[in-house]
């Protein structure tokens, strides 16, 4: 276990793969050398002079809340009332009145779905909401992520939840489809596809199709236990030495969601920005297959020096 070396506060500069850089003020900076000489780097970045201490936190304080009649808070309750702001005095025969009432009660209750081409008629706002979520948003039933089209949803499901997909990837097939419809190209890795999107289709380098959520240690362990043996291999590795766990190489860093996380100190030096957790969790924003893939790569490459 390497020791933490504290550096004095200062400006740090981080560079991303495309050459952009950002400067941050690190008020604490700890750098750690591990057995394999890869630096871990933990810094606490303060964006204001004010300390984020006890005095700063806005504690829960019960205060009564009052709203004026035209406040948006009351909008949903006002909808029906607004319709009655003006009323026409209709002159109808007895029959017409009955007919109208029946009509109002049955048919008008049903609202046509406003989406073009959708023939659905719904009974109430809540029904509409359910219908909308079921039919017009493509959401993943496994992890609840939402996509704007069913094509993207099915790509997501294959890449994130399908072990056959992973098996084919492992055997070297080109499985990662380009996200742009009509392009048709496929790639062997998430990263390669990502690069293609940037190079060919001008996607921003910070775009991430799959943003992995950070799981607690318990959840991660649980999920891992549910998978096949090659992942168990990963788990064993994890359990064995927390140092090795902290070996994060640059490719893994690329997979991170936040802009900051995609930055590395240089092209060859890895960095792990985390927030004070001892067991380096900073890099779970990577699809499992990428993580695994890069792990095999890194075992052959010598550790970078800095």
């Amino acid at each position, binding site marked *: 276990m390497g020791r933490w070396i504290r550096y004095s506060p200062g400006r740090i500069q981080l560079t991303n793969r495309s050459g952009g850089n*950002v400067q941050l*003020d690190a008020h604490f900076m700890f750098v750690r050398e591990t057995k394999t000489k890869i630096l871990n780097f933990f810094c606490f970045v303060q964006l204001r*002079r004010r300390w*984020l*201490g006890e005095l*700063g936190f*806005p*504690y*829960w*304080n*019960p*205060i*009564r*809340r*009052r*709203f*004026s*009649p*035209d406040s948006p808070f*009351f909008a*949903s*309750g006002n909808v029906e*009332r607004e*319709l*009655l*702001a*003006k*009323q*026409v*005095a*209709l*002159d109808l025969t007895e029959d017409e009145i009955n*007919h*109208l009432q029946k*009509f109002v009660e049955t*048919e*008008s*209750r049903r*609202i*046509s779905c*406003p989406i073009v081409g959708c023939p659905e*008629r719904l009974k109430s*706002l*809540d029904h509409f909401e359910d219908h909308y979520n079921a039919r017009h*948003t493509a959401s993943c039933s496994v992890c609840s992520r*939402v996509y704007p089209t069913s094509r993207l949803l099915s790509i997501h499901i294959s890449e994130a939840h399908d072990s056959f997909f992973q098996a084919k990837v492992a055997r070297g097939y080109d499985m990662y489809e380009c996200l742009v419809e009509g392009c048709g190209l496929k790639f062997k890795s998430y990263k390669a596809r990502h690069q293609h999107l940037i190079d060919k289709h001008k996607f921003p380098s*910070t*775009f991430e199709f799959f*943003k992995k959520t*950070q799981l*607690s240690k318990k*959840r991660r362990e649980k999920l891992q236990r549910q998978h096949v043996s090659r992942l168990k291999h990963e788990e064993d590795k994890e359990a064995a030495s927390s140092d090795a766990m902290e070996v994060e190489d640059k490719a893994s860093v690329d997979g991170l*969601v*936040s*802009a*900051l996380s995609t930055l590395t100190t240089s092209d060859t030096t890895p960095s792990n920005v985390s*927030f004070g*957790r*001892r*067991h380096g969790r900073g890099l779970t924003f990577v699809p499992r297959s990428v993580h695994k893939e890069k792990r095999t790569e890194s075992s052959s490459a010598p550790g970078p020096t800095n």
Partner: protein
Amino acid sequence: MADDGSASNRRDPIKSSVGHVAGQRRRQQAVTVAKERRELLVRAKRLCRVGTNGDVEDALVENEMMIDEEQPILEAQAIKSVEELKSAVQYQGKGAMQKRVTALRELRRILSKSEFPPVEAALSAGAIPLLVQCLSFGSPDEQLLESAWCLTNIAAGKPEETKALLPALPLLIAHLGEKSSAPVAEQCAWAIGNVAGEGEDLRNVLLSQGALPPLARMIFPDKGSTVRTAAWALSNLIKGPESKAAAQLVKVDGILDAILRHLKKTDEETATEIAWIIVYLSALSDIATSMLLKGGILQLLIERLATSSSLQLLIPVLRSLGNFVAVDPKAVLTILIREQNTEESIIGVLAKCLRSEHRVLKKEAAWVLSNIATGSIEHKRMIHSTEVMPLLLRLLSTSPFDIRKEVAYVLGNLCVESAEGDRKPGIIQEHLVSIVRGGCLPGFIELVRSPDIEAARLGLQFIELVLRGMPNGEGPKLVEGEDGIDAMERFQFHENEELRVMANSLVDKYFGEDYGIDE
């Protein structure tokens, strides 16, 4: 230490994080859905009326289509009818009155056949001056009635059409007087109601022309459709957001008694209109609020909530109750204590609303509870010891977002003492523990993840309570167990600085380097 000159440097990459984009997308999606829903509802109401042919088979037929077929016919009829009215008004000979009434009736019929009367055509043919003339003092009742009816329907349409009634207003107001026959007065009230419903400018005109006192007096009788129409018109007139109309209403002698009387006894349709008057009074007039409270309005509101199942009535009644609680928790809570054991206690009716299938009732009932929960410890205990708690916990996990936010307010308020001054508010550990054990933590952490800043803030504040207040230092483990750390770490690069700071300070304080060191 860097100074602010470099602030922009620091901010940009944070802002461009993908998390921000995703958050924005979610927000946009939420806004789109809400807007579509609103439009749907308005369209549905418009679709419900039937044309002259009585063709009702297909509700999918847009109104525009139905209008296209009939509209030219109606328009032509309207123009012709106005011409006839013109000549009838000019005619001075024998049977002039009958001619006028006949012409008026014809115009009225044309203007009452469908939900979209041919108003524009009638206006361009010059209907208004003629109708104003027919409203002159001393005219027979039938004439007044038909004329007011025409004006009512003209005013029910587009804003410019409603504004066209300006010349007629003084006369319409005059015919609200007690010497007018009931149907005439009612029809004039209806027309005035439509004008008031148009917007604040027209409301101000009506007020300055003295519409309010006679209209208010029309709700003194015990019953009748006149009372209902007048109450509706009155509610349109005082709805604000300026408070001067409400203030003027309070000054009408006997009005508050009449309101209380109707709230207690009258039929549900009339009570609905009265309830909306109370909504506006309680929101806009402190004098009205205190006088109504003294008059025992809370008990009447609670009774209505307990006995009625009409959503149209329940919404304004519940909201009135909420307004009273929001203004003066102490008054309400005095009643709470008194009525604790009766079925119709305030907690009981609020529970009924929480159990309802209607979103608005659930949301606003939770809001009322959240305000009650800002009271003293006894009051918090009172909520905490009732049937409401399992309802709230369930709603926190299952209901739509806006309800969950209100429920969050209730639960959090129950766990914290109402603080005096600047000191950190103390935690009521007993409540916190039971609420957390009741399974509220996932719901709060879910709020932390929402794109709504206020909700995320609430979630973080509650997490702070858990971290600080749970006994035996269980807080951090519980939060971690529900992926709370993950939720908080998403704020690392969030665009909102306050949330960033809050989340970061919690993670640092409770999940710092030493966390998990014993594992």
